[in-house]
């Protein structure tokens, strides 16, 4: 008896016992699940196999970045869906970042009216579910924009209608390679130049206007090449043919609604993050920087932003991840993303719930895990080192 009570009173052995018990129950639970799945599948005459991925999907996808038709396999349909998820996440992230940073800064501005407007924007937007945003924007585009025949035209080159947005499409001709080449050269030059100036400043203290020189090099060098090679880019302007527009780039109502909704919704969260990040910097930092005579732009670039960045970037990334995960709600308006293709139509057609959902979940899981691993690495890199 004393032997057992001694084991239980010893911290080390008690920990081991508890863990063994937990492991035992875990194993029992998992085998219970597996047994149930087996029994259920046997009763239904189903099995687990991924061969369905290679049979023709047989359904159409109206928006694709790589060639796709309904004779292609379910696997390819899934990849098209994944790329569509990436596409809407890309546009959404750009919109959300620009709008969010602008709103965050306006909320901190000394202008009472502007800051109040930004505040109420944030409150109204983030307190309404994202699905409602998506449906609302989709409804507005479908129901209130005119038919293509009466489309709202912006300077006769861009058209807004209830069939989506049509914007001019740049077509490249021969000679464009020169522009690309000059662009690459300009980038390489500006990196080297920035390094050179940095070293020069470290050695002598002389400062060059690196930023402006680099910006103008990157802008003008490709522009010169563009004119030398005889302007090898033309715009294909969408034109009304019959009931709809032909030519140009087409943004479907679903993609547009999803981009607006995700961008506008996430912008509210980003605005709060930016505001919190700037407020987190001690007032003394700004005052000290001003008192040693730095210009306002230098105060911002050299003192405030490098410190605020450390606070802002981790939550910002998690907002980007949220945006990407929220884009799975596309299924509600029929935008063919990963969930709507592989986890939606493919699932219904093949009846393989287990396999399709497993693939979809694993893809999302690996994306978010790799991004959070990246974030942890970044965090450990920029962490304030306590001495």
């Amino acid at each position, binding site marked *: 008896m004393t032997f057992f009570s001694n084991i239980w009173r010893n911290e080390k052995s008690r*920990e081991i016992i*508890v*863990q063994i018990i*937990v*492991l035992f129950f*875990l194993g029992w639970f998992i085998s219970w*699940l597996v047994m*149930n*799945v087996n*029994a*259920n*599948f046997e*009763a239904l005459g189903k099995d687990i196999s991924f061969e369905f991925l290679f049979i023709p999907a047989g359904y159409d996808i109206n928006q694709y970045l790589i060639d796709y038709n309904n004779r292609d396999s379910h696997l390819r349909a899934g990849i098209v869906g994944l790329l569509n998820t990436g596409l809407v996440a890309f546009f959404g992230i750009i919109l959300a970042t620009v709008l969010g940073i602008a709103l965050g800064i*306006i909320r901190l*501005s*000394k*202008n*009472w*009216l*502007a800051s109040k*407007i930004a505040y109420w924007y944030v*409150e*109204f937007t983030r*307190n*309404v*579910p*994202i*699905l*409602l945003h998506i*449906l*609302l924007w*989709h*409804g*507005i585009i*479908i*129901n*209130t924009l005119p038919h293509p025949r009466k489309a709202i035209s912006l300077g006769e080159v861009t058209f807004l209608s209830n069939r989506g947005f049509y914007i001019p499409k740049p077509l490249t001709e021969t000679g464009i390679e020169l522009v690309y080449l000059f662009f690459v050269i300009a980038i390489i030059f500006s990196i080297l130049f920035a390094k050179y100036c940095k070293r020069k400043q470290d050695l002598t203290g002389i400062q060059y206007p690196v930023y402006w020189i680099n910006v103008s090099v990157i802008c003008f060098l490709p522009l010169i090449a563009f004119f030398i090679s005889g302007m090898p880019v033309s715009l294909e302007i969408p034109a009304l043919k019959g009931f709809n527009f032909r030519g140009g780039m087409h943004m479907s109502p679903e993609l547009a609604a999803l981009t607006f909704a995700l961008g506008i919704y996430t912008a509210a969260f980003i605005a709060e993050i930016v505001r919190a990040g700037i407020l987190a910097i001690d007032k003394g930092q700004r005052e000290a920087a001003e008192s040693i005579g730095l210009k306002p732009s230098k105060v911002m670039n050299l003192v405030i932003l490098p410190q605020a960045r450390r606070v802002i970037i981790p939550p910002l990334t998690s907002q980007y991840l949220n945006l990407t*995960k*929220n884009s*799975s*709600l596309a*299924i*509600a308006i029929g935008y063919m993303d990963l*969930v709507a293709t592989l*986890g939606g139509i493919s*699932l219904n057609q093949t009846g393989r*719930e*287990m396999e399709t*959902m497993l693939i*979809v*979940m694993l893809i*999302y*899981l690996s994306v*978010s*895990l790799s991004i959070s691993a990246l974030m942890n690495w970044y965090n450990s890199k920029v962490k304030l080192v306590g001495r």
Partner: protein
Amino acid sequence: MSEKIYKPGNYPDLPPPPGTVGVYGWIRQNLFSSISNSLLTIISVVLLYYLIDGIIGWFFLDAVFDADSKIACRKIDDGACWAVITRRVGQFVYGFYPEAERWRIDITFLTMFIAFAPLLYPDIPKRKWLLYFSLFYPFFAFVLIMGGYFGLQKIEYSLFGGFMLTVILGVCGIVCSLPLGILLALGRQSNLTVVRTLSVCFIEFMRGVPLITLLFVASSMLNYFLPPGTNFSILVRVIIMFTFFSAAYIAEVIRGGIQAIPKGQYEAADALGMNYWQKTRFITLPQALKISIPGIVNTFIGLYKDTTLVVVIGLLDPLGIGRAALADTKWNGLSTETYLFVALFFFVSCFAMSRYSLWLENKLNTDKK
């Protein structure tokens, strides 16, 4: 400038310079302090003017509040056609719950505030007695809503819908996910490798996948994992998924709170000879929960908003009711009105929650005053 010379002695206080106080001073300081600031003000005013003008016209002045169909609406006026809401307001609130039994929902909803009051407001008088009611409330609500006992008519789950469904899903998810979240957070900080690994896997999995895939699992696959023949309501399955999902987020919020507690606190607790559960109960959790209140409430608001996703798996929450209304040819195309109405409901309830969290945060913030 002529300088006035003051001899030593007492002088009356001078009034502040003109233009720095009062309405005029306030406007000058806050709206027109510089050229860029004035520009921003003018842009904001113009923006607001158009916004308010458009909103008031469309929402109220030109709006139609009762008509038989969209076409009838448009004949009367060209603003919003709220008839799509007013004609179905019962459905938006109660779903397809039988009309004669709706008083049961009303009573449950009103008594919910009494049940929550002692939990939300620690200073309320007679708190102890009210807490007993809170404990008893879940059974009371269940019996009243579901029926089947005490001569109450039994109501099927499939009739639930509208805002009532949102509140049921939200409240059940919130109430169940907090304890689970606390356990997961403690598990993640545990010394036991097995427990820690399990918690980390669960949390990372739940946070890594979109909620909608979990709802698909709940609606189409969960039965495979249970013994053949088991079948329980989709509502319960969805609540389980919501609970798991938001518990993972709450666990991360609370973990942040636990990690923010200074190490000295644990060392002091160890020095007093407290065991693990005493340390957790008296040292860790009271401090960690206090720090993490804003994060927890934010997670709750997120969960509450996410209840709208059930429309994708076919439950009739307000969005589902709205979409059903829009599918009716009479109301076809009134999506803006419908969705704005639902949005207003969510805005009011979520805004109230976030205000409550601010209030509580200020109240608990004892170390700054």
